[in-house]
């Protein structure tokens, strides 16, 4: 009866999704429900002087909410609580929410939104990392710095003198929109008697819960958050849903009616979080036989107007900045700075795609300086089991980057194609090239994060003899429901169909933490496994069940137990694996309990007439521990690679005065089915002893490596070194023409 883990079991909620029966937030209607909308600031920074309501609108029919209507603290509680829920007079970015409106008629509501004039006295602004660092204006705190980190290992400054080569470079990455196809949406019911309940699209029900409790100054039990079917997240529904839930709930509280707020695409793209733009500077010391002596890395993220999650994004980017290499001397100086753009936030990879892009572009240039091939140079520097990472973590898990690279090179035909393209490219306007990237991604919260979270998950038996998994971990397309059911079924020794997943509802499920950081399978999945084993022991101990048993016998035993003794429920709280230590002060220690490791290869064609780049083939080899569901895992990685191909080549956020001006799918271009190569996925499995059945995390890994692999391939094809993404045709044209003039 066991053996579901490792098999491609169809998606648990798949039938509802392929038939269109799955209910997303916009599919729900409540009696008497009205619609809400947001009036936003018109400038990037300033002081509001007046709010005028144009006379053509019947304003008495509207519910109007301002900051004065907030019962508790006017902030979106997260880390520092510096982001207001509604503007209290000071504008810090161009999409700042100023006022909320609600009305039953959505057409009139939109007219009304346009008939509110926010008048403001402008203040000086800052829009770039350079201007923010130079304190052209101080717009946040004393120095525009949200957070800074210093990682030091060995003595970087002593290495320059003894090295044979020193290679420097600067690398830039742009913002990226998550572009989940379901926009953010929320429905709220709220009043002083019953408290606040919201239903919506989200990754982290308990983040929303925390924000609402603070905003309304309500006890925890008076706030309820329910996740509806969620049409993609990618980090874009990590922190932002707290803002939208707050707005819907304020309108519901004041109007006494259920309020639905669904962003249209333009508002969703312009006003909600995006990936942090970044600037990374590398200075690397290396010996003539290609051994890394020192990595000196300066890493800066543009955090936007409020701190929000920037310190955490910066932390992950910082820890991943030295990559899967052993280097005796490392210094990473990192900081997140303020600009007058909407806050940048969580997006799959969480800082690592930025620092890994810089590193893996730079490693190709270091290899060239030394006179080694990109593969050979990397091979000489890969971190080995029992070696110590830049943050002082002894890598205890089995790691074999050289094997992953050998497989990737072989599967992609790297060497033979590189030779062939080198021979064919001269004189041809189509230039082809191969590029690779080697990287890793830590699973779970950084450092002591999982210990602080202290997540809880459980399983319970129903009176029908069905097992329900209880967690706040959300299904957002990545397969939570399916893998939890597989893990629980195997732990209990029962059929997959006997396991159900409880809807994430803060009044019904324990806080298993946010659905982020590649932690759901490895961390929460392990809790589900442990809880299931606990429930099985209880049932065996009760004498109602004896091994071996069938699914039917198990279900009958559950029914008897529940009928005779009441609830049959088992919950487990996170305990760190043994020997994991992290020091937040020195930023040294076991940054992550486990890593996924990977080597990716891109094959590209660059058209030197149109300046378009096409990815022709993509090979992704990764070691992720036990693969719980091969079809789901493969699909998730393919999707991450597709998103990263967009990041590398197409997805260009155009800013004007802190505002995204191409906030449409017409002019912000993501890959279609016609734009992508065959994406070929290969797994190595080194079971991780503290993951469920040996599994680690995989969600973020695939977005880290493709961009540098692609740009490395562009360099091989064209001979031109490009150091920023996205490599749009415009960027390529400017770069190639500058070289050829």
């Amino acid at each position, binding site marked *: 009866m066991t053996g579901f883990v490792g098999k491609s079991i169809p998606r648990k909620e798949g039938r509802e999704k392929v038939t269109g029966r799955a209910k997303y937030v916009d599919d729900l209607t409540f009696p008497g429900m009205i619609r809400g909308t947001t009036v936003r600031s018109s400038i990037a920074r300033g002081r509001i002087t007046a709010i005028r309501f144009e006379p053509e609108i019947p304003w008495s029919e509207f519910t109007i909410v301002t900051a004065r209507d907030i019962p508790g603290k006017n902030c979106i509680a997260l880390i520092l609580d510096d982001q207001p829920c509604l503007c209290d007079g000071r504008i810090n970015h161009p999409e700042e929410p100023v006022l909320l409106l609600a009305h039953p008629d959505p057409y009139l509501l939109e007219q009304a939104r346009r008939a509110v004039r926010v008048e403001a006295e402008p203040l000086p602004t800052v829009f770039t990392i350079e201007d923010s660092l130079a304190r052209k204006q101080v717009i946040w705190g004393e120095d525009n710095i949200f957070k800074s980190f210093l990682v030091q290992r060995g003595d970087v400054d002593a290495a320059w003198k003894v090295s044979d080569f020193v290679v420097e470079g600067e690398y830039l990455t742009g913002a990226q929109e998550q572009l989940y196809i*379901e926009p953010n949406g929320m429905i709220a019911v709220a009043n002083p008697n019953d408290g606040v309940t919201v239903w919506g699209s989200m990754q982290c029900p308990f983040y929303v819960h925390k924000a609402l409790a603070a905003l309304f100054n309500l006890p925890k039990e008076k706030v309820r958050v329910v996740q509806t079917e969620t049409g*993609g997240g990618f980090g874009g529904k990590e922190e932002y849903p707290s803002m939208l839930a707050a707005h819907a709930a304020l309108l519901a509280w004041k109007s006494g009616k259920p309020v639905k707020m669904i962003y249209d695409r333009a508002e969703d793209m312009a006003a909600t979080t995006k990936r942090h733009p970044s600037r990374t500077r590398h200075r690397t010391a290396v010996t003539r036989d290609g051994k890394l002596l020192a990595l000196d890395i300066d890493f800066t993220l543009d955090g936007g107007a409020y701190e929000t999650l920037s310190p955490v994004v910066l932390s992950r980017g910082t820890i991943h900045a030295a990559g899967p290499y052993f280097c005796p001397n490392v210094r990473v100086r990192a900081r997140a700075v303020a600009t007058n753009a909407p806050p940048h936030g969580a997006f799959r990879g969480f800082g690592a795609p930025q620092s890994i892009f810089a590193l893996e572009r730079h490693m190709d240039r270091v290899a060239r300086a030394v006179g080694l091939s990109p593969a050979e140079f990397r091979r000489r520097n890969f971190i080995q089991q029992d070696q110590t990472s830049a943050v002082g973590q002894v890598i205890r898990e089995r790691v074999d980057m050289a094997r992953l690279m050998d497989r990737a090179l072989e599967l992609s035909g790297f060497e033979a194609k590189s030779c062939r393209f080198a021979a064919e490219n001269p004189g041809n306007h189509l230039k082809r090239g191969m590029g690779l990237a080697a990287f890793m991604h830590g699973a779970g919260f950084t450092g002591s994060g999982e210990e602080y979270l202290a997540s809880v998950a459980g399983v319970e038996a129903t009176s029908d003899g069905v097992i329900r998994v209880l967690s706040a971990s959300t299904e957002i*397309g990545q397969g939570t429901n399916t893998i939890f059911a597989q893990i629980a079924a195997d732990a209990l020794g029962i059929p997959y169909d006997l396991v159900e997943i409880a809807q994430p509802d803060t009044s019904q499920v324990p806080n298993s933490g946010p659905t982020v950081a590649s932690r759901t399978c490895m961390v929460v999945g392990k809790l589900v496994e442990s809880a299931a084993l606990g429930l099985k022991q209880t049932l065996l101990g009760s004498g109602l069940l004896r091994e071996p048993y069938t699914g039917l016998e198990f279900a009958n035993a559950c029914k008897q137990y529940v009928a005779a003794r009441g609830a049959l429920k088992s919950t487990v709280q996170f305990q760190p694996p043994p020997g994991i230590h992290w020091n937040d002060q020195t930023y040294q220690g076991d940054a992550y309990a486990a890593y996924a490791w990977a080597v990716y290869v891109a094959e590209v064609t660059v058209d030197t007439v149109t300046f378009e780049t096409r990815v022709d083939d993509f090979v992704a080899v990764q070691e992720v521990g036990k693969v719980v569901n091969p079809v789901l895992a*493969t699909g*998730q990685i*393919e999707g991450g690679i597709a998103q990263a191909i967009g990041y590398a080549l197409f997805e260009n956020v155009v800013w004007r005065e802190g505002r995204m001006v191409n906030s449409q799918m017409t002019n912000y271009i*993501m890959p279609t*089915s*016609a734009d992508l190569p065959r994406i070929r996925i290969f797994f190595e499995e080194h079971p991780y002893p503290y993951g469920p059945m040996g599994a680690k995390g995989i969600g973020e890994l695939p977005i880290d490596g493709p961009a540098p692999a692609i740009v490395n391939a562009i360099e091989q094809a064209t001979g031109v070194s490009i150091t920023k993404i996205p490599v749009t045709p415009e960027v390529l044209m400017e770069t190639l023409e500058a070289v050829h003039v």
Partner: protein
Amino acid sequence: MSDATGKISIACTVNGKRVTLRAFPMERLLDVLRSNLHLTGTKEGCGEGECGACSILMNGELVNSCLVPALHADGASITTIEGLSLGDALHVVQRAFLECGGAQCGICTPGMVLAAVNLLERAPSPTEAQIREGLSGILCRCTGYMRIFESVLQACRASGIHK
């Protein structure tokens, strides 16, 4: 035709049933299907004809229902995702999406499944290029499309067996 509110009567066939709808002539067909007929399987992703989540079959053509004025539906035959399966029996394309991992978050799935059905009606044994072209009007952010291509091929194989 229009009453005091400006609404008109629209007679059409939706998922095999004849219906008469009351709607403003320029109302989006997407909204009429979702609000008047409660067919919420048709999704809105962008509202400007780019993402294809609102795709339906109208007189045998795949259209973005967010771009179709309701009055154009008069006399039309419309199939939404809800009209594809009979009771609990899945359409061969739906079953293939379920088996091959063609659906992840599911928000593009109704439009994508209808695009695949429409493609297979036009090209029962499509080449990879035809599949890529035939699905290119529907954006998916989760899958990278590979499992969707596999689903279409699986549906072809399964249809072949049933023929």
